């Protein structure tokens, strides 16, 4: 996020795209609703009529996978109506002409038709956003989980820069991070192409810096991404895996391939707090301490690095993951000895510029620090891109429409989207152990429009078969006009209805993010 969560409350216009905020980021939704109470306008771009869409002033129900045409049409309206921020474009950006030429070539009517959103609605949204003094865009996996995810994000950046809605307090572009420490895991270099703090592995200077600190030559070539590792098949390039606290056997697309791959490994070790679907396939399982039994830091969506404090002792023989890693490393000939998580953080601060001033003793005071925090005296950074972008000038990256990896056809006529619900979290490893949360919601439902349900003679709650080219599951139908005709929606939390057996493993070539938001499916009645 370029802003802090609390800044959203002060925006005049909030544009939400591809985020079911009330369910997945309740605290962010709380700020949005508070802003609306104070008179802010809320625009929601989502194929489904979510709770937030019901509270919105404008809801743009686009066809899944048409984010780029929709945003391009909004930008064209900004240009046509003189709402572009010429001064900002002149002072802070580059490559504007390429964007302008592309937009001017657009046929607005045609583009709007492609998205399924009436042009007047798009125009209204553009005007609201363009005229606001302070506007934020919040987006989530509805933007990134497409084959054109990277271009979707770039197009959002184009829109924000064109309208000059960035660089100020209460104004910016805010991707909402899904998991508690997904931001931190990225920051720490848990990526195949990045060393900590986004220092590319292919860059010799960066590598050299880490080689000196770690006393060892480091591999140069970019590694494999998660989907490449878990989808290589039984004869794939990966022979052994170590998995810490992740459950690809439920979270990854095309699960059959994941299972085939993991079963085909020579060796798999998993460390987790419960025996997950993935751990069940392992040769070795380590019992890990959970968050309440260890200390360290998490980094939230607004880049705030905060302390995690030990409240109790781990049960049984559980050990913290850091201990397990150090034990293994020593056995493999590379001894790592740290007396505390604070000592690890000192090394992180030494090697990662954006964490340069993050020390546990500082984080213990107050409410943590937001990166970039360059040194011990730096107060942290509540909002990004003030006066200049990280790369200097903001670069417009015009993009056109990319069709999804798989479109509905005669055989598989419905479009499936997947997402999250409020009471469950990710693969349910923790939430499904909670008595109260499971009581509130413990099974997957398939949202289907009344028209489609009628065509199939479905009753509310009836179990149905859901099929794609990759697999089949059974789950209960929930007939609702939250989804439009031709689309269905469900969640990925439940191992009894592992929706990722059906999803497509087509992924964005830039971010390698799988296209969870679009694949073709068919619904059939369960044979009596």
């Amino acid at each position, binding site marked *: 996020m370029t802003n802090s969560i609390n800044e959203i409350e002060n925006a005049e216009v909030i544009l939400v795209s591809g985020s079911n905020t009330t369910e997945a980021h*309740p605290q962010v939704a709380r700020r949005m*609703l508070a802003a609306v109470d104070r008179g802010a306008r809320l625009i929601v771009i989502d194929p489904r009529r979510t709770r937030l869409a019901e509270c919105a002033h404008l809801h743009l129900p686009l066809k899944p996978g048409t984010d780029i045409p929709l945003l391009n049409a909004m930008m064209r309206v900004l240009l046509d109506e003189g709402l572009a921020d010429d001064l900002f474009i002149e002072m802070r950006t580059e490559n504007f002409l390429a964007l302008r030429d592309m937009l001017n070539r657009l046929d607005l009517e045609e583009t709007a038709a492609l998205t399924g959103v009436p042009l007047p609605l798009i125009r209204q949204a553009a005007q609201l956003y363009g005229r606001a003094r302070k506007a934020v865009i919040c987006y989530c996996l509805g933007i990134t989980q497409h084959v054109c995810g990277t271009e979707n994000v770039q197009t959002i950046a184009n829109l924000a820069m064109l309208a000059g809605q960035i660089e100020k307090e209460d104004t910016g572009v805010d991707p909402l991070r899904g998991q508690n420490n997904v931001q931190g895991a990225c920051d720490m270099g848990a990526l195949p192409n990045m060393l900590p703090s986004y220092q590319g592995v292919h860059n010799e200077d960066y590598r050299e810096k880490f080689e000196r600190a770690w006393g060892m030559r480091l591999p140069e070539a970019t590694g494999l991404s998660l989907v490449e590792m878990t989808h290589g098949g039984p004869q794939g390039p990966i022979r052994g895996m170590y998995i810490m606290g992740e459950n690809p056997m439920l979270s990854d697309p095309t699960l059959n391939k994941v299972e085939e791959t993991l079963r085909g490994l020579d060796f798999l070790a998993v460390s987790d707090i419960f025996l997950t679907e993935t751990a069940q396939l392992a040769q070795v399982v380590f019992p890990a301490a959970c968050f309440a039994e260890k200390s360290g830091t998490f980094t939230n969506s607004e880049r705030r690095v905060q302390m995690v404090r030990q409240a109790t002792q781990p049960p049984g023989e559980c050990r913290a993951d850091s201990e397990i890693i150090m034990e293994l490393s020593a056995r493999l000939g590379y001894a790592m000895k740290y007396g505390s998580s604070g000592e690890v953080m000192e090394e992180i601060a030494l090697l990662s510029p954006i964490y340069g001033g993050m020390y546990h003793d500082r984080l213990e005071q107050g409410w943590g620090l937001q990166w970039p925090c360059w040194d011990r005296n730096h107060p942290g950074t509540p909002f990004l891109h003030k006066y200049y972008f990280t790369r200097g000038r903001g670069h417009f990256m015009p993009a056109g429409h990319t069709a999804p990896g798989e479109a509905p056809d005669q055989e598989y006529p419905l479009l499936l989207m997947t997402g999250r619900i409020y009471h469950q979290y990710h693969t349910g490893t923790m939430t499904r152990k909670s*008595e*109260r949360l499971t009581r*509130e919601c413990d099974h997957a439902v398939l949202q289907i429009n009344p028209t489609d349900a009628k065509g199939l003679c479905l009753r509310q709650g009836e179990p149905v078969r859901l099929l794609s080219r990759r697999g089949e599951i059974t789950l209960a139908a929930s007939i609702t006009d939250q989804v439009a005709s031709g689309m269905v929606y469900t969640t990925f939390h439940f191992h009894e209805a592992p929706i990722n057996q059906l999803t497509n493993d087509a992924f964005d070539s830039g971010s390698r993010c799988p296209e969870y938001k679009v694949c073709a499916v068919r619904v059939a009645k369960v044979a009596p």
Partner: protein
Amino acid sequence: MPHASATTSSHLLKKDHLKGFLRKLAKEYRLVAPVRNRHNDVLFTVIDDLDAAEIELGEPPQNSLKQFFLPQQERLYSYTNTPDGYDFRPTQTTIPPTVYFGVHPCDLSAVLYMDVVFSRRQRDPFYLRRRQGSVLIGVNCNSPAPNCFCNATGSGPFLEMGSDLQLTDLGDRFLVEIGRAPGHALIEHWQGFFSPSGDKDSAARYQAFLEARGRFSRQVHVEQAIRQLEAGTVPEQVWEELSLRCQDCGGCAYLCPTCTCFTISDQQLDATSGQRLRSWDACTFGGFTAMTGGHNPVQAKTSAIRQRFLHKLRDDVRQNGRPSCVGCGRCVSVCFGGTDIVRFVERACQGSL
């Protein structure tokens, strides 16, 4: 209300001597008081080191005493599966005699309400073993917080009865009134800390009460809302509007000092043993009224929200003569969407005032 009745004797405790008095208490009791921690949050805390604890009597603490008498999750029984069936044994817990110091009138009223719930018709042994042997030392509220409205629920800002000792801050000293016998015993036991109070002090107390009463920033028409609920004239759209904005966190019920709903569940630990747990629940949760077979008599969110406010403001008035909302305002600041009791009262009374 404000005048000390003739039968209660009152005393003075100089502020300089408060810590000394608490130190004496801490020798014989576990001491719980609102403490401002290093993160600036004020919580009722078990005080181990009196010198390190910053006791905060002004800002209302964010938690109430509920969690001390009715923990969020409590193990009631452990059981073993035997050939003859289940063998249940109550969990042994020793709760030391505890002094709860610095309890605001809203939270005191809430404890009295919980006492009614857990001991009037049926005596709940698990509640009572935590509640018995506790000494309540209240402090009248001189500075209501922005969300407070105990003046509208008859539970503050000053309280005459309910605590064992009741303190009023008079600047450099506390006026100490005896509410119950255990309070009297404390004063008897540590007489040296106290001196007799005079008319001047009673007058100062009355003055403080008047000032506190003038410091409420909200006018919440609780009585009017109660009348509307009793007459069934709350417009349907009020429930719809509130339920659309409820985000189902349960925070209002969990933070509420008088929400006492709980659920009991059995958790199998291994093949031959398990435990019976009691944990907080909230009537706004969809699953709260769900039955085993899947039927749910409270179908819509609107009904659940309606149920919550009917219970607090109508049913409890019918049963106990007063609402079980104590006006502490906790649910106001916590609410994600604006479904709190103050918003309800405002909406329900719109147009009728």
